[in-house]
């Protein structure tokens, strides 16, 4: 047991990879055996994931650390660990994975490759969430791409090649620029301290000087493409529409989360000054994503495209909440990640089930499904409501906390100015009032409109598909397997919606720590006030103090 405890994370990461070897020996013609072997392996990761969840201590430290040297010349190591934030995303991954394999129908061509790719994908995703070494992270980040590329390209719809090439090129473009920034981070740290390290906990607090903005943009571009945030989102609808149902589920459920996770773990803590500097731009992009995604989703005629654009809109909340950089906002953002992962994955499952029966995804050709499919109605309704963010579903918790956090952060200067007396603001000192704040405030207001728009397009879609004149006679209702896929999702959505503490109790210490340490890096005047330049030596000294205090806090 002790051996297992000590290697639990590497077991979790490499179990699916080992599973590929098992699948390799199963002959192609035993399709059921292939499916259940893959299912069993992913179920095993689920069990380990839950074990991890329950044995995780609710504090801010990195736990279950494992460190093995890998490439000594640059001190690159296999360094994994889990904190409250990555714990939830790992859990999301291991919950979705067996459901996808359970859902997959053995009629699919070249089944062995299909399951192998999914298991490889799981290894990649878990690796991204658990890596604490920046190069290891990059390796897993790229490992995720290849199976997804083949899943869309081999089992996708009519325009699958266009979609999958677009997906791959967008992501690779971002990640290559990230690679440049990543190497620069390591080299600048080496120049300052004389030590090569790729350990992210050691890299925090490095002073990058004038390059910081560029490095930050390199990372953020890669992550924003993955999320995706407004101007970089165009690959997503194509990929979703063309991908097979299983691919869409894992794409919406986990892959989009990699981007936000990257921001939390790498971009923001590594570059706190640049984050502050670019904050307005980033938040505005998130807000545009919320509204733009909602409006475009409203106009969609295709069921899958509508859900895909609603993803753009919902991921916008994660960005807004995250860049509020206070406890409320970040917690909201994390909960929204999980909630969106569950609800949208469920919606893509439902769309896949409807498509199997009706052979169309066009909303206008569907209608009146409620009459013959009561079970479908039940699951579809809960998932739709969760997606809208109705109270008592997880979607509400996520969206509400994100917006609350954003309001606290961005709206307060404006509100304070208008309501409280001027000298009160003067006493707080750093609160200044600009046209830009009003702009942000107004956008914050519009952000709430996104929720309303969400209700409009989701309920409109639901109504058109489920009610009205029945266009299909005697449609088969959901079978046992399909219910088994959807029940866990619905249960988790309701559980988190009713008692969010069950997950926030695990994340809160980590979020606190993240927020506190972010604000600990005071913005040096050399960056904010031009003219009065302080020497970089004094800045670095000041910085290494903050860094050391952080080192002590680490386990």
């Amino acid at each position: 047991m002790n051996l297992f405890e000590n290697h639990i994370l590497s077991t979790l990461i490499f179990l699916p990879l080992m599973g590929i070897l098992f699948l390799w020996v199963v002959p192609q013609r035993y399709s059921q055996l292939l499916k259940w072997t893959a299912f069993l392996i992913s179920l095993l990761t689920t069990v380990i994931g839950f074990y991890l969840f329950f044995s995780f201590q609710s504090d801010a430290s990195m736990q279950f650390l494992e460190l093995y040297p890998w490439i000594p010349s640059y001190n690159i190591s296999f360094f994994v660990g889990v904190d409250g934030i990555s714990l939830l995303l790992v859990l999301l991954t291991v919950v979705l994975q067996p459901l996808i394999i359970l859902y997959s129908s053995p009629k699919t061509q070249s089944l062995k490759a299909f399951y192998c790719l999914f298991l490889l994908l799981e290894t990649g995703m878990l690796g991204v969430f658990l890596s604490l070494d920046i190069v290891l992270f990059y390796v897993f980040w790229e490992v995720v791409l290849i199976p997804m590329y083949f899943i869309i390209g081999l089992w996708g719809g009519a325009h699958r090649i266009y979609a999958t090439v677009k997906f791959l090129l967008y992501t690779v473009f971002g990640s290559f620029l990230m690679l440049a920034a990543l190497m620069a981070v390591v080299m600048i740290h080496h120049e300052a301290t004389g030590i090569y390290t790729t350990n992210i906990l050691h890299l925090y607090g490095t002073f990058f000087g004038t390059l910081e903005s560029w490095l930050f943009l390199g990372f953020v571009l890669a992550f924003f493409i993955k999320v995706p945030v407004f101007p970089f989102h165009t690959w997503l609808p194509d990929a979703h529409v063309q991908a097979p149902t299983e691919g869409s589920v894992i794409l919406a459920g986990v892959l989009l989360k990699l981007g936000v996770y990257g921001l939390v773990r790498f971009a923001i803590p590594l570059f706190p000054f640049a984050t502050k500097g670019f904050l307005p731009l980033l938040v505005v992009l998130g807000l545009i994503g919320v509204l733009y995604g909602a409006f475009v989703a409203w106009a969609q005629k295709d069921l899958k495209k509508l859900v895909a654009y609603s993803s753009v809109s919902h991921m916008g909340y994660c960005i807004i909440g995250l860049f509020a950089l206070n406890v409320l906002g970040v917690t909201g953002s994390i909960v929204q990640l999980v909630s969106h992962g569950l609800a949208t994955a469920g919606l893509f499952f439902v769309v896949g089930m409807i498509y199997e029966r009706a052979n169309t995804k066009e909303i206008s050709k569907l209608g009146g499904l409620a009459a013959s499919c009561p079970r479908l109605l039940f699951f579809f309704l809960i998932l739709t409501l969760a997606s809208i963010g109705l109270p008592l579903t997880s979607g509400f918790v996520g969206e509400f906390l994100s917006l609350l956090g954003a309001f606290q952060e961005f709206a307060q200067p404006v509100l304070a100015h208008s309501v409280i007396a001027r000298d009160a603001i003067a006493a707080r000192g750093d609160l200044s009032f600009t046209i830009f704040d009003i702009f942000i405030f107004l956008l914050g207001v519009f952000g709430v409109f996104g929720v309303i728009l969400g209700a409009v397009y989701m309920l409109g879609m639901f109504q058109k598909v489920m009610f009205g004149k029945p266009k299909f006679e005697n449609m088969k209702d959901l079978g046992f397997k399909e219910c088994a896929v959807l029940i866990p999702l619905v249960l988790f959505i309701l559980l988190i919606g009713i008692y969010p503490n069950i997950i926030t109790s695990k994340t809160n210490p980590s979020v606190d720590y993240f927020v506190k340490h972010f604000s600990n890096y005071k913005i040096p005047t050399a960056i904010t006030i031009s003219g009065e330049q302080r020497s970089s030596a004094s800045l670095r000294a000041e910085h290494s103090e903050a860094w050391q205090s952080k080192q002590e806090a680490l386990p």
Partner: protein
Amino acid sequence: MSMIYLPLIVIAACAFGILLCEGWRLQKNVSFFLGLLALIASLALLLNQEIQPHLTFFSHSLKLDGIWYVSTFFLIIISIFIFLLSHASLKPTKKEYFFFVLIALLGMSLISASNHLLMIFLSLELFSLCLYVLVTYNVSDVRANEAAMKYFILGAFAAGFFVFGTALIYAVSGSFVLSDIGEVILAPSGYHPYLLMGVSLLFVSLAFKVAAVPFHMWVPDAYEGAPSVVTSFMATAVKIAAFSVLFRLFLTCFLPLKTYWHTSFFVLCIATMVVGNVAALMQENLKRMLAYSAIAHSGYLLIAFISFQNISDLAPLHAFWFYLAVYSVMNLGAFGVLAATGYETLKDFQGFGYRSAVLALLFSVFLMSLAGIPPTAGFLSKFYLFSAAIASKQYILVVIALINAFISVYYYLKVLIAMYMSESIGGEKVSISLPAQVTLGVMFALTIYLGLQPGILNDFIQNAMRGVF
């Protein structure tokens, strides 16, 4: 001790032995096995040698130091696999073929050891002449004849540049020996314009050999016209030989002149990367595509020359040799697939993933490695090279290189799409012979193994480079 050049003597003796076999009309496999035996023997002899960094031979014309050691090690290994691939794919094998391969190997090994400008010229000609013949292996093929003709005429031009440059440098320094020239360069009297002109002429000539833009015109034609196995020999061995002499000249002897040659290397590096990658986008013939990708990889390798700043930081040089080794492995793999299957165009590869799953998987891994996707060795070699460049503050160069790597992903993907995602044109399962299977298997294992455990190659390079500077 004095026989440190014994591996070269073994190769040369065996090459002439093979010619004798031809004279006696022995079994056709005899020359193959004889050559293979000689290569393995010389590899064993080489590994037994202690590197003597400062010893020179034959009135200072050869210097068997780390540069020679590393490149000869790579060259012999490449030649072993070229032998295997040739046996598998060239039928009927002409007996003098192996003679030419061995003599070319001899020339390449000598050029990497040359410490004397005339010696460089002689060995350059020695292996180039062998290659002109190898390109026209299929005498009746019009394309091959055209390719060889182009290669020969342009190569002769480049050789002319080299001789003229040598003459100019001799006029200033009064010596052909690199260490004497180095002393003249270090003398405080300032640089004679003839010296700089001579150096730039040498640079042009070698840029032709490493296929840097704008001296790259011969590459796609020669690569396309030659049999695939000869192409893989050119893409790997010739590149190592040419880069090793560029390395010796510009990073040891002409290093004090770096302020003069830095800019031209910089411009050529960017041009080579951009032209190579953009031109590769438009190719339908895989041999041409891989030829342009080989040009682009020369561009990446030139980054090491620009990032090398002083001898206290050898990281760019280690990265350079690591990249060259990994590049050879993956290119030998990729061209090996072409040679073993006889396929050339994208159309041939349609549905290949369903006809020969294992071969297609290997080919995909080689291409992904060329594109620099982890966890293959191609990623790690790029990581080493670009980190070294960043450490010497070449940010713009690295960003341009990575954007180029991004472009390259697209054309490598085209092959994957053809293999897995397009309508199959039918055709039967391709079966390849055992030597080819061994070659591709080893290259695949190396591509993955070096991506996960680069330590062994790193240590080898670091040991060998000790004492070069």
